[in-house]
């Protein structure tokens, strides 16, 4: 097992380098450079200024040299500094955005699981009943509706018309002056709309998965056996069928690990949330290469780790895989 693990981990390194190599060159293919962003159609910027900026960013060097320098820095754990005028550490910028995105994604994932799984079970155990049909229509409306449009409608209703909830942002103006319980309440009020809407629009996938998985399981022989033993329906469904039906859903959960750190640009823009989606999107638009590469490295590492985790758990379960 140990040798399998070591082999797998070492196998990841060339893969990771390959990903960064391709990303580094692909982003350079996009027209424009970080210098353009500061100087395009800015009447005050002259050619000398442009050259000076090029040089400082190291953009006057050939591409492979730039890549080598970048690789050298990143191998020492240095993400470099952003090309934007604030010149901040890339690592620091990611550290600011990541917890916000994680908080939102984990909460909406919990909401999706908490509602989606019971809906799926309900639809499966009472297939074609009225509740099944209603929830099916309901989750598909959520799935088909453009998230940003639904968000704007909810903001209009709860924020402007009823005035119950704050419209955007993560905290109130005078957050720092509040007491701790007030702070928690304030945060919660700000999270209701974004988490709720992300949850509602994401329900369809998991509830349908749960439904079909459950439908498959309840037809298995051991469920019939359980019923034949005279167990009551609750025990059959929740103790015997549900546990097995949950397995594929848990696999999906594992695969969504990298998605946890990826924010949605549209969502974050509408709700004015400073998360990973906007960080990456703005970085690409301004051709802020160090920041783009920083975010890409983090997501690549997480994706690879997620895959590794899945493989390792399969290997634990199935000895045949280890020898391959």
């Amino acid at each position, binding site marked *: 097992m140990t040798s399998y693990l070591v082999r797998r981990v070492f196998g990841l390194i060339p893969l990771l380098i390959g990903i960064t190599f391709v990303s580094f060159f692909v982003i350079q293919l*996009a*027209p*424009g450079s970080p210098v*353009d*962003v*500061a*100087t*395009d*159609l*800015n*009447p*005050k*910027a*002259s*050619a*000398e*200024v*442009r050259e*000076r*900026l090029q040089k*400082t960013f190291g953009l006057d060097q050939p591409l492979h040299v730039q890549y080598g320098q970048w690789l050298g820095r990143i191998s020492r754990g240095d993400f470099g*500094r952003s090309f*934007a*005028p*604030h*010149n*901040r550490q890339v690592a620091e*910028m990611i550290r*600011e955005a990541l917890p916000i995105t994680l908080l939102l994604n984990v909460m909406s994932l919990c909401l999706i699981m908490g509602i989606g799984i019971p809906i799926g079970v309900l639809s499966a155990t009472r297939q074609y009943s009225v509740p099944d049909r209603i929830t099916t229509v309901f989750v598909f409306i959520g799935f088909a509706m453009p998230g940003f449009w639904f968000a*704007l409608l909810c*903001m*209009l209703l709860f*924020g*402007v018309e009823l*005035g119950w909830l*704050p*419209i*955007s*942002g*993560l*905290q109130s*103006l*005078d957050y720092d*002056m509040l007491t701790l319980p007030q702070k928690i309440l304030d945060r919660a009020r700000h999270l209701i709309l974004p988490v709720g809407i992300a949850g509602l629009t994401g329900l369809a996938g998991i509830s349908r998965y749960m439904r079909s998985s459950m439908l498959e399981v309840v037809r298995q022989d051991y469920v019939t056996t359980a019923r034949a033993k005279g167990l009551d329906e609750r025990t059959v469904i929740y103790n015997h069928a549900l546990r097995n039906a949950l397995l594929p859903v848990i696999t999906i959960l594992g695969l969504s690990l990298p998605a946890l750190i990826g924010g949605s640009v549209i969502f974050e*823009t*509408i*709700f*004015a949330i*400073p998360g990973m989606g*906007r960080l990456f999107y703005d970085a690409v638009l301004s*051709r802020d290469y160090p920041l783009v590469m920083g975010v890409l490295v983090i997501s690549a590492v997480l994706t690879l780790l997620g895959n590794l985790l899945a493989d390792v758990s399969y290997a634990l379960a199935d000895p045949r895989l280890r020898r391959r």
Partner: protein
Amino acid sequence: MTAGCSRGPETPGVCEIAAQSGAVANGDSILLGSIGDASNLIPMRAGDSASHEVAGRIFDGMLAYDRDLGGLEPRLAERWEVSEDGREITFYLRKDVRWQDGEPFTARDVEFGFKTITDPATLTAYAEDYLQVSRFEVIDDHTFRVSYDKPYAPALATWGSMVVLPRHLLEGQNINEATEFARNPVGLGAYKFESWGTKRQITVLANDDYYRGRPHIDRVVTRILPDQQTQFLELKSGGLDMMGLTPLQFTRQTEAADFTRNIRKFNYLGNGYTYLGYNLLREPFTDVRVRRALSHAIDKNEIVSAVLLGRGQPAVSPYKPGTRWFNDRVNDPQYDPEKARALLAEAGWTDSDGDGILDKDGKPFRFEIITNNGNEQRAKTATIIQRRLREIGIAVEVRTIEWAAFINDFVDKKNFDAVVLGWSLDPDPDQYIIWHSSKTEPKQFNFISFDYAEVDALLEAGRRTFDADERKKAYDRFQEILVEEQPYTFLYYPESLPALHCRFRGIEPAAAGIAYNFKDWYVPQSLQKYAMTASP
């Protein structure tokens, strides 16, 4: 007419109450919206408007434009002298100004700022104006003199806040990496920096020691709200006090009583114009008759009413109507399709094969208008032009292109027939970098390759004299030539459409807009919304 305490079913809105209650009072906060976060609060290091807007409250310049944008008025300098030959400017600074940390402000600080911005190692897009300076002399703590090799009229206005930096805090530091100061600056303006939550909000507080007197509004919070729709909802619900409306919001979505009870709208000409620029190196735009014909074929009023919903004016020249530099005696080509056809026929363009498209020497009159994507107004404008030109027999294609590709692959390589773009307008009339024939290289701004000897001479003359009447003469003639030559079809000047909560008073709209006297805005005591805990 009704007394203030009548209790009908409709309680009076803030606008009604504010109109009656009066006394100037200190206090309250104003919540502003910004699409993007600031990047760097050192003015010379920032390239975005969000940074400049915040930094503009924290820093001050030697001088500033007055409310009519006609002249300059003193700020940190109490007066200045321009030498006879126009090559030297001497600034006499106020002696009562202190940095927000208590250190006195002196000419050494300006010298430090000047040295920093002209240092080749400094990453700034604004060095050009200061590289014209041949000598910077500190005469005493409160006097300095700058010399130029040739008189340079726009020079005076460049001595704004760009070069004012606290030497005692920044000397010896690398300005490019001064992240500490850039995110927590010490200035000398009406407001002092308080806090900055990345991509959330930036807060500044009134500076009690401000040399022009403390501003009345205690706190200015700039909230970063990247979505226009969200901003609008926040404005309606009270989460924002001021924002710029779109023409659609201004004309169609802000008429209801629940909006107008609490929020007041303003409209005045903004600082910019949109144009259709022709590539003067390409046939048939080399022919002035063709360009005039195109201008006659385009109905500017129609564009203003369709694209801006009437919230703008047809443009004539690169100057703003109502300012001293605008020449109102020029004859702008009016919408007249018959005249357009006649001019085109004169230039040899007729529909000889009867297919509805004009042709000359067997070649049909087709061309492409390009503009950057993401700007809906420009795309709509191009489409309306397309239709009008089709009516006189010209086939136009419209293409929108992503900004970076648009600039690099099309504009810089002069690989276009015509572009729809906009310029913002500076209060100074100098237009050298856009129209002088020496500015046609890639990345320069005369990308349409306009080359006209008399215009070159006029633009040079306008730069070389400080005498406003002489400058006016030069720029009047310059405008006559532009209107005659039509290298651009000047399309429209859009209006600025700010909306502001009614509790704010002391607003006096002028050519400079409404924000120029922000320091004098106030909220009457009874209407103040945000109580501040007393600051020491």
